[in-house]
């Protein structure tokens, strides 16, 4: 038993830490949530210097709307990451769910042969969410039930689902969407686009669920130490399964919002978005190893990312350079969090 301990696996038996160091690490833990706030303020100041338009209401709404759909996918990914898994297929669900709904309801007579017109229009939104739930359930079947590696499973799903959307659409764009599908993405509630309200509401809900319910805390426990979570009576498999389904439904909803905003579902909707999603989550302090991170942190991550993109646009940086700068922002954010957090961001 004990002779299997070696110098490498043996934690040092240290005396109890001093009260001062404990309260200090406590303060850091609390501040971690707010770690990006100074950066956001700094970007806001720089932005307003670069172009006074930056802080105008119109521009702020513009930033919030442009990030609202991706932000919901970030929320979805955060839920999965906290359990210690990851879901790459969210970007394909983001395109496929509204794509399937459009395929089933649009009239081929109006869209040059695209679509089947087999379902009445009222089914469009339920179908979007149902497709999301089915994708999540299938991911859960492979990852939770069969114990396959989550990265590989969802990578496969990413390709399969993208291929499915390309197949049913023939690589073309669904348009002439029913009003029920475009409403959420294009409506304005009290002068602010509904998609902003919706994403903010979902984030607020996420903060409450992950911070203040046993189910939410179970996600953290599983990501931190699945065996210990099981020992505490948490049904780890069921929680994981539900987390994957909720994430896919959120991604489907986000896809519905962007389809509504653009009044179309292109075959490539969401392609490549997963990188931005991961970047936002990781910058926001969500650990890829699970157990660490918060919904609020993830929100600040995605906000910072889109603010920087907006500032670059306002500064007149050519669009060709946006990706280069995006990548640079991600790397710099990782280095900064390594320095301030003391530990490697993983």
């Amino acid at each position, binding site marked *: *038993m004990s*002779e299997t*301990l*070696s*110098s490498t696996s043996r934690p040092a038996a240290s005396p*109890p830490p001093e009260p001062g160091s404990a309260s200090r690490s406590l303060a850091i833990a609390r501040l971690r949530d707010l770690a990006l706030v100074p950066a956001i303020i700094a970007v806001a100041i720089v932005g307003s210097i670069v172009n006074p338009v930056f802080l105008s209401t119109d521009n702020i709404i513009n930033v919030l709307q442009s990030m609202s759909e991706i932000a919901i996918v970030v929320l979805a990914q955060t839920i999965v990451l906290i359990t210690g898994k990851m879901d790459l297929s969210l970007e394909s669900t983001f395109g496929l769910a509204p794509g399937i709904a459009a395929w089933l309801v649009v009239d081929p007579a109006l869209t040059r042969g695209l679509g089947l017109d087999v379902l009445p229009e009222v089914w469009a939104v339920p179908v979007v969410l149902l497709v999301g739930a089915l994708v999540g359930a299938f991911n859960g079947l492979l990852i939770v039930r069969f114990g396959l590696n989550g990265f590989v499973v969802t990578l496969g799903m990413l390709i399969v689902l993208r291929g499915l959307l390309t197949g049913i659409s023939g690589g073309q764009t669904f348009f002439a969407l029913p009003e029920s599908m475009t409403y959420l993405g294009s409506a304005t509630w009290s002068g602010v686009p509904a998609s902003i309200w919706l994403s903010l509401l979902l984030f607020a809900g996420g903060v409450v669920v992950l911070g203040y319910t*046993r189910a939410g805390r179970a996600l*953290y426990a599983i990501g931190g130490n699945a065996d210990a979570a099981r020992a505490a009576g948490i049904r780890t498999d069921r929680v994981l399964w539900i987390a994957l389904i909720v994430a896919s439904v959120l991604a489907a909803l986000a896809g519905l919002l962007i389809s509504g905003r653009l009044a179309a579902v292109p075959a490539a909707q969401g392609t490549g978005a997963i990188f931005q999603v991961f970047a936002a989550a990781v910058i926001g302090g969500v650990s890829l190893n699970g157990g660490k991170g918060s919904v609020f942190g993830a929100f600040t991550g995605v906000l910072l990312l889109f603010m920087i993109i907006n500032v670059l646009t306002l500064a007149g940086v050519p669009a060709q350079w946006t990706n280069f700068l995006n990548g640079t922002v991600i790397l710099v954010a990782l280095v900064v969090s390594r320095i301030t957090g003391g530990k490697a961001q993983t």
Partner: protein
Amino acid sequence: MSASPAGPTDGLVAADQPVVEAVNITKRFGSTLALSEAGIVVRRGETHALVGRNGAGKSTLVGILTGLQAADHGTVAFDGRPAPPLGDRDAWRRRVACVYQKSTIIDTLTVAENLFLNRHARGPAGLIRWARLRRQAEQLLAQWSVEVDVRQPASTLSVEQRQFVEIARALSFGARFIILDEPTAQLDGAGINRLFTRIRDLRAQGVTFLFISHHLQEIYEICDQVTVFRDARHIVTAPVAQLSRPALVAAMTGEEVTMSEVDHRPLPTDAPVLLSVRDLVTTSGAELSVEARSGEVVGIAGGGGSGKVEVAEAIVGLTRPVGGTVVVAGRTLRPGSVPDSLAAGVGLVPQDRHREGLVPLLSIAENVTMTVPERVGRRGLISPSRRDALARDTIADLAIKASGPHVPVSDLSGGNQQKVVMGRALASDPKLLVLITPTAGVDVRSKQTLLGVVDEARRRGTTVLVVSDELDDLRICDRVLVMFQGRVVREMTHGWSDNDLVAAMEGVDLHHV
């Protein structure tokens, strides 16, 4: 050797029912008999020690007493009532808790949340009330005098604080019977003292402990009763005060199954010194100085935490020592460099074959020749035919059960995997062979083969260092250095008695009891 379940002098109980009573427990894992009609009775308020050598069945018994495993035969009763069904985890948690060596604290959560995981205090809307949860956690820790800030993340806790938090959590479920599985293994002396103070305090408050430890002096310090298991059987239960240390050691070791005796011809007096370790100090503070001659087999024995593995890893360069030199056949090894020690002619069987010994998906041939690319290739390119020829020799020499050199190592049994590791250590015709727990987890036949190979190597003039706490491994040694808490405390020449050696590993001197 007979069981005496009723402790005659235990004044703490009278007509009271025992906290736990396990009778005639039998448990098999495949063909292995883990427990054979074994049992234990723990009475209220006592601190009961469970001792036995590795494989004696202690862990299996703990699994059965905590409801993680079902016994094949036999009954478990708590307070005179039959144990709850295995599925009813809550009922088990109200009766018994075990603090394992492997912590069940979740690092990323706060101490308060760890204490009340999945039973958080909730308000009317089902939302967690963090302030109340923190207060509850503070009250709980205050009740059992654990001084830890409940708001800090659990990752900041020290090993002993984790144990205290786990004990407090167990008590909060209502359990008043707690199993401590080698709680002192990762603690230093001061930490052990604090743990013992805590155990005594809790005992005064009516908590019963089952204490598992390899360190006999701790049992004499803290326990009232002791139960000894050996080879899956219950050997004896007695009050600690009535069982002398030699009797306890004898009960633990019993009659060993003797391995085929190797002949211990005295070394030729002119055999050159091949290995010279001077003032080696490891990062964990273990120290060793030793000289060994060509053809000599030197054992380094000791329990967990004795530092025997650390010094061996420092000798072969797996870890970088803080100080000291290692000279092999006149060549001073570069500290912390495995390539340098390989070049100097050191062969190693590492402690954990899964982690450091083998690449499981590669073939036997590739694993065996991994350290000797120059012997199987020419001009930097590996010749498959030469490699396979070398592997075939190894398979034949070590009687590895495999259809050929191309079988992946992952398809082999544990004993045959260990033979591959040994084959690799021997592939370079080493001048010094360092074997760290070479027969851990292998069956008797493979053990004989492996130890026979060692004997052959020494006949060829190789110096062998056997680092182990298995008596069978140490029996082939010309002399054994016994380490305890990082120091060599005894040196025993061939012909030692088992009891003396076990006692020395446990830090007890039988001649001064």
